[in-house]
């Protein structure tokens, strides 16, 4: 009879952390047994981590014996040497099924975790930690540790089970499906938490009549890792405590530098130039100002528009006439030239309000 759901079958003897404490624990593991810097994580580390994951998490038992897992990645060089010295091979020095092996797709693509985004160019260094140091002269200082952004990588693996019996297939399938029931599983590689996604299951069994028959099923996984190369880490000295001495003569007088007062910055000139055959100009004001006319060159009359609304003709000719322009207003001036074969200009005085 099955146990009621509320009864715990496995009780952890170590206290389990949750929430922020768990997050801190994960961060601490990155630096555990190491320096202040994260541990380097390269292709071979990710491969080793995946092999360990397969061995520890996907191992099965058949007929009372643990199904062997090849603890090495199949590469072009090693396979022949390795399999012929394997400790469970037959008279022909071929590996006896059942066994589980892992094949890595040689190409490693730019990663898709957390998403396929090229965020930071040129391997810029980022602050990671500030570590207290003692200089040669015994003075206390700080070192600044910087690292570049880790590079995400997707590595594809095929985990293959080769066996003679359907029961072994079932057992392995159950183990994998249960482990990846929520599509992904996690493994820790050198303290880093790495997700693994299950992609597909395919059957490559040999079922031909006049051939040695065996089952082979291939489970493809994507390990969504990242690369951290310790050769790219930088340690730079920060500010250290120093003793600065200044010697000052008592007989010299301090020369006062004349104070520079900036000029009036609230009034400036604005010029609208009209080349030949141009009779209209616009300008967007990024401030609020009162404008008055300074002078006209080769202009017989002009019309003013604010935000395409007609304001008037020759409306600011007199000294006391002004036009208020607000921020983001568009001022348009249309002129009638005295001599149409020459250039014209309208000079305005702008006073910021």
């Amino acid at each position: 009879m099955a146990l009621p759901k509320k009864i715990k079958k496995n009780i952890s003897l170590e206290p389990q952390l949750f929430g922020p404490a768990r997050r801190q624990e994960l961060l601490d593991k990155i630096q555990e047994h190491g320096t202040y810097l994260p541990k380097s994580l390269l292709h071979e580390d990710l491969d080793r981590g995946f092999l360990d994951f397969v061995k520890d998490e996907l191992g099965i038992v058949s007929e009372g014996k643990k199904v062997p897992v090849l603890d090495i990645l199949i590469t072009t060089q090693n396979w022949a040497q390795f399999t012929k010295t394997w400790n469970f091979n037959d008279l022909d020095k071929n590996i006896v099924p059942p066994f589980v092996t892992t094949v890595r797709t040689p190409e490693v693509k730019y990663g898709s975790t957390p998403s396929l985004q090229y965020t930071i160019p040129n391997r810029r260094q980022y602050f990671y930690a500030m570590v207290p140091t003692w200089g040669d002269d015994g003075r206390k200082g700080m070192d600044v540790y910087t690292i570049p952004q880790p590079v995400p990588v997707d590595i594809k693996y095929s985990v293959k089970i080769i066996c003679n019996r359907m029961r072994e297939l079932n057992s392995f399938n159950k183990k994998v499906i249960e482990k990846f029931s929520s599509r992904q599983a996690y493994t820790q590689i050198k303290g880093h938490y790495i997700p693994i996604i299950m992609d597909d299951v395919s059957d490559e069994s040999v079922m031909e009549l006049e051939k040695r028959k065996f089952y082979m099923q291939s489970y493809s996984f994507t390990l969504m890792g990242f690369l951290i190369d310790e050769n790219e880490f930088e340690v730079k000295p920060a500010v250290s405590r120093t003793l600065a001495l200044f010697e000052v003569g008592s007989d010299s007088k301090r020369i006062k530098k004349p104070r520079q007062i900036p000029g009036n910055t609230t009034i400036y000139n604005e010029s609208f130039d009209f080349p030949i055959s141009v009779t209209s100009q616009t300008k967007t004001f990024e401030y609020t100002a009162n404008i008055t006319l300074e002078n006209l060159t080769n202009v017989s009359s002009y019309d003013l528009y604010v935000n395409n609304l007609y304001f008037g003709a020759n409306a600011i000719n007199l000294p006391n006439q002004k036009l208020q322009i607000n921020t983001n207003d568009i001022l348009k001036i249309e002129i009638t030239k005295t001599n149409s074969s020459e250039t014209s200009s309208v000079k305005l005085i702008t006073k910021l309000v």
Partner: protein
Amino acid sequence: MAQRNVPITRLNKFFGAEDFHLDVGMGREWLEGDMNFTLVLYRVDKTKTDNDDIYGEAGKDSIKFHPPIEFKAFVQVSAPENKFLGNSKLDQMEPGNIRISVYQSHLDELGIDIEFGDYVGYYESEKRVRYYSVANDGRVVSDNKHTYGGYKAFYRTIVAVPVNENEFRGL
């Protein structure tokens, strides 16, 4: 009801049952006397074998067989192939199939029949035996090749594929 025997009268102007038996006898003398290729047949005892109820698969060393019987036959072993295991990158030396040509009269004398799934052991050396599983029991012998000049079938060609120790090792 007894099965009706119909005499074979084809080719009877120049070939008959006596000639047929004579030639088969000479062939057997050459094969069993001169060549003397010996194999061991392990006929699977389907009632005693501890099979799985669902898949019909037996565990390691769980296949039960009738007492092994030696028989003489003409043996051709195909060359081994160095190839990948299925579609994987695992390459290994795959032993070749065995092709066994045996006189039907020899099987009749021994009172045995070779069926699909039976195992055959063939000693490659004094200490090394390789086991094969019958993948083609050669029961259909209606073709011209297996008849003596079109007169009557007289031998069977059996094809067997190598098996892993994990499946069968003669114990």
